[in-house]
């Protein structure tokens, strides 16, 4: 136990020391930019990388009343990295009009000097506020006008101008300043005329803007447009829930006065008398502009198919040696950055002598792979077709063409006539089923079909089964588990008993004695029925001898009461049982020499006495 406690202490100490070893940053922030005379704002002095810094003395600020409210600590663990911070909160209330500067504050701690950033607050004339609408028994503490500054959404398009089909990154950010926001959903934005990719995993970080510190959630995606023109994107919208602090006031007017006293206005009591309610909120950003330029006509190659980006083209073919009718696979990989939706299979030149099948297309992040099956129809084919890929590079604003030279191919004749081979169904490797979506004319047939590649339907029904006929649902499944287990237990018990009989001689004797005693009991019952006292007492004596000999592990020959008495006494056998054993031995001795005239009743009593002795001795742990 002590060992575990030591380990825990060492871990905690290590974590603390790691936390202490962090660089300490000192920042100043304020929750409002502007207040009216008589209103107050909260100034926060935050130390990142520690939680042990006492409240700095910020002195007097001319024209402003400052009151320390208390500390607030925070610990975050992001990807296993622990970061601590402490924020000392001050209430600042301007007493005159004007712009107030808070900071830079200088603070000395453990021999180091830290200097904060600056925060500004403008005090304006006091304005008569309309009485806020309040629900009965509740007070809305969040000022609705304040929300726009503390919770908002931005939409940013990385480029103001782009070409048709060019990928344009779009960033949507949610800014939150000291508000409790939850259940943030993925943003949506008006993208008419554009295709949008899925959002990447959102990033979370902090950003300072206008003297305020915001928690930022950043969503990134990409769009591309297909028609030139001037476009407006957005506004972006995002749904989330805002936890609003409500103060409960179910008390009388007197209680209310009491609550309004300075002590009860303390944040601690404020928290005690408040509760949170969640309200769905939809944030909206401003619009963004984007101009789409048409691709230049100048220098446009004839075989240009619309690919826009910056790409590399890798080409390979295999196997290099085949027979007529065997498939040859061309693997063409286009990788790089750009709009892969516009990348189509490179043009194959001179496919004469090949039967060409539909390609299999696979799109992964940063690359698109085409597997093209070709079947040589004669042995006169010596090389694979040349492959040409053309694209437009939007950064360099030029068209580029990558040409891959043919790969050498050795095609051998087969025994069958070529006509037969060509007539057969083409052999396509199982990993390369044909993509249905690539079939020409399919889109015209079904408009609602999503564009993409799915593999073709199965030709066979495979293993058919009736619903609910699974093996694990049948009773047989449970029988399979229970019956062998029971068999194992039975065999184990038998085996264990046999093993003990083999190893434990005392146990073997005892078991044997008990078994023999049971047999002899049957003989005694028969002798009792035939009323043969001599025979009865002979068997009774023998039974007694055999049982005691086996039970006490002593030789049976010549066993008398005198022999067994010391052994039984040493085993703490009851005196009454000893008396019974002695009586049995005595009666048997007398019967041997015909000294008693036994009748059935007496024999029955003696037999009963023997039963009691055996029962008693079996009960004892000897």
């Amino acid at each position, binding site marked *: 136990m002590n060992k575990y406690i030591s380990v825990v202490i060492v871990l905690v100490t290590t974590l603390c020391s790691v936390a202490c070893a962090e660089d300490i940053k000192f920042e100043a922030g304020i929750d409002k930019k502007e207040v009216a005379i008589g209103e107050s704002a909260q100034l926060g002095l935050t130390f990142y990388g520690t939680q042990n810094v006492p409240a700095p003395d910020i002195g007097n600020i001319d024209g402003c009343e400052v009151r320390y409210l208390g500390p607030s600590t925070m610990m975050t663990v992001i990807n296993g990295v622990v970061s601590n911070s402490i924020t000392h909160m001050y209430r600042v209330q301007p007493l005159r009009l004007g712009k107030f500067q808070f900071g830079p504050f200088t603070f000395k701690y453990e021999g180091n000097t830290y200097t904060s950033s600056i925060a500004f607050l403008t005090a304006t004339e006091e304005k008569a506020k309309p009485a806020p609408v309040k629900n009965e028994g509740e007070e809305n503490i969040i000022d609705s006008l304040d929300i726009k500054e503390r919770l908002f959404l931005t939409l940013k398009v990385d480029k103001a101008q782009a070409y048709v089909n060019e990928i344009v990154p779009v960033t949507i950010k949610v800014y939150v300043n000291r508000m409790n926001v939850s259940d943030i959903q993925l943003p949506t934005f008006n993208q008419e005329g554009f295709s949008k990719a899925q959002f990447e995993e959102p990033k979370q970080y902090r950003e300072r803007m206008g003297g305020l510190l915001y928690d930022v959630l950043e969503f990134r995606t990409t769009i591309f447009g297909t028609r030139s023109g001037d476009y407006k994107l957005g506004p972006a919208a995002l749904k989330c829930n805002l936890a609003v602090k409500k103060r409960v006031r179910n008390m009388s007017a007197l209680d209310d006065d009491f609550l309004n006293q300075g002590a009860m206005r303390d944040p601690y009591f404020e928290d005690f008398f408040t509760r949170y309610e969640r309200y769905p909120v939809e944030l909206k950003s401003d619009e963004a502009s984007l101009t789409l330029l048409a691709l230049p006509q100048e220098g446009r190659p004839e075989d240009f198919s619309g690919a826009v980006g910056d790409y590399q083209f890798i080409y390979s073919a295999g196997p290099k040696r085949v027979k007529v009718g065997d498939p040859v696979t061309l693997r063409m990989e286009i990788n790089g950055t750009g709009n892969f939706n516009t990348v189509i299979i490179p043009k194959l030149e001179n496919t004469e002598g090949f039967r060409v099948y539909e390609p299999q297309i696979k799109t992964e992040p940063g690359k698109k792979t085409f597997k093209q099956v070709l079947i040589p129809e004669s042995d006169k084919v010596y090389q694979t077709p040349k492959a040409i890929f053309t694209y437009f590079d939007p950064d360099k604003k030029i068209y580029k063409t990558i040409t891959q030279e043919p790969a050498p191919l050795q095609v051998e004749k087969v025994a069958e006539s070529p006509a037969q081979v060509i007539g057969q169904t083409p052999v396509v490797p199982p990993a390369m089923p044909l993509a249905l979506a690539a079939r020409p004319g399919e889109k015209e047939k*079904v408009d609602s079909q999503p564009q993409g590649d799915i593999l073709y339907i199965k030709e066979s029904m*495979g293993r058919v089964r009736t619903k609910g006929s699974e093996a694990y649902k049948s009773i047989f499944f449970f029988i399979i588990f229970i019956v062998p287990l029971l068999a194992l237990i039975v065999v184990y018990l038998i085996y264990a008993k046999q093993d003990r009989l083999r190893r434990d001689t005392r146990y073997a004797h005892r078991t044997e004695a008990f078994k023999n005693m049971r047999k002899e009991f049957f003989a005694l019952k028969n002798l009792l029925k035939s009323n043969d006292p001599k025979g009865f007492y002979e068997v009774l004596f023998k039974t007694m001898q055999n049982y005691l000999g086996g039970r006490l592990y002593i030789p049976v020959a010549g066993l008398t009461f005198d022999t067994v008495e010391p052994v039984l006494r040493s085993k703490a056998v009851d005196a009454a049982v000893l008396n019974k054993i002695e009586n049995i031995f005595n009666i048997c001795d007398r019967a041997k020499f015909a000294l008693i005239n036994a009748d059935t009743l007496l024999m029955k009593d003696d037999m009963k006495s023997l039963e009691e002795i055996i029962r008693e001795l079996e009960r004892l742990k000897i």
Partner: protein
Amino acid sequence: MRKMPLVLISMVFCVNLALSAEEPQDPHSLFYKANSLYEQREYDKASEEYAKILATDTVSGPLYFNIGNTFFKMGKIGYAILAYKKAQRLMPGDSDLKSNLAYCESLTEDSALQAMSQNRIAWFFNFPFREYSLNTVSIILAVLYLMLIAMLLMGMINPLFKRRMTILFYPVLIGFLLTLGAFSVRYYSEETLSHGVVVVKEAECKYEPIDKSNNYFTLKEGQEVLVLNTRSGWSRIKRLDGKLAWLKSDAVEEID
């Protein structure tokens, strides 16, 4: 016209009582007929034929695979994913199925949540058996169990055999324990939990099972959820990241 797919869908996923009155048809001939309709791009008719097979209580991985393809072609991604998930339980190792399901899922916005829902212990046990259906795992479990019992019995009866079989016993024991773990995990996931797939374009999830309740979050077509219970036309669901909400029961179809 708008209701047409829904009618077909209900034919596929519900027991068609009308069919039970008809003469039973051979599932294989129905399958080939449906396939030929699919090849002719008569997807509505193909789905009707596939539905007839399901009405005979016959199931198979390729059947659900083809149904998934048919729904995909009809533009019903949610139902396509549902059918693929059903097929996955019968033939999880099928590469065509993996490819089609992955493609359909890439069209939804479920990937981030899928990643969140992965349990490491479940993954550990399930990994060696990811290519096998629960039925196959149960058969492997039974075989290993019988082997184990047989070896124990033989070892008890013949000590010489016990010494010789020690090398084999421990691998079988480990295999049995791993299979037992995989079976338990899979059984819990497939038979105890009720997985569902959103089959409408957008499903508003609410805090309470009433129309006027606030929206909590929105689920997109094809997203997978756990259906906890159903009450008066509302289903209580758990999103893969653990969030609980209510949504209209007709917006989600259970995988089994």
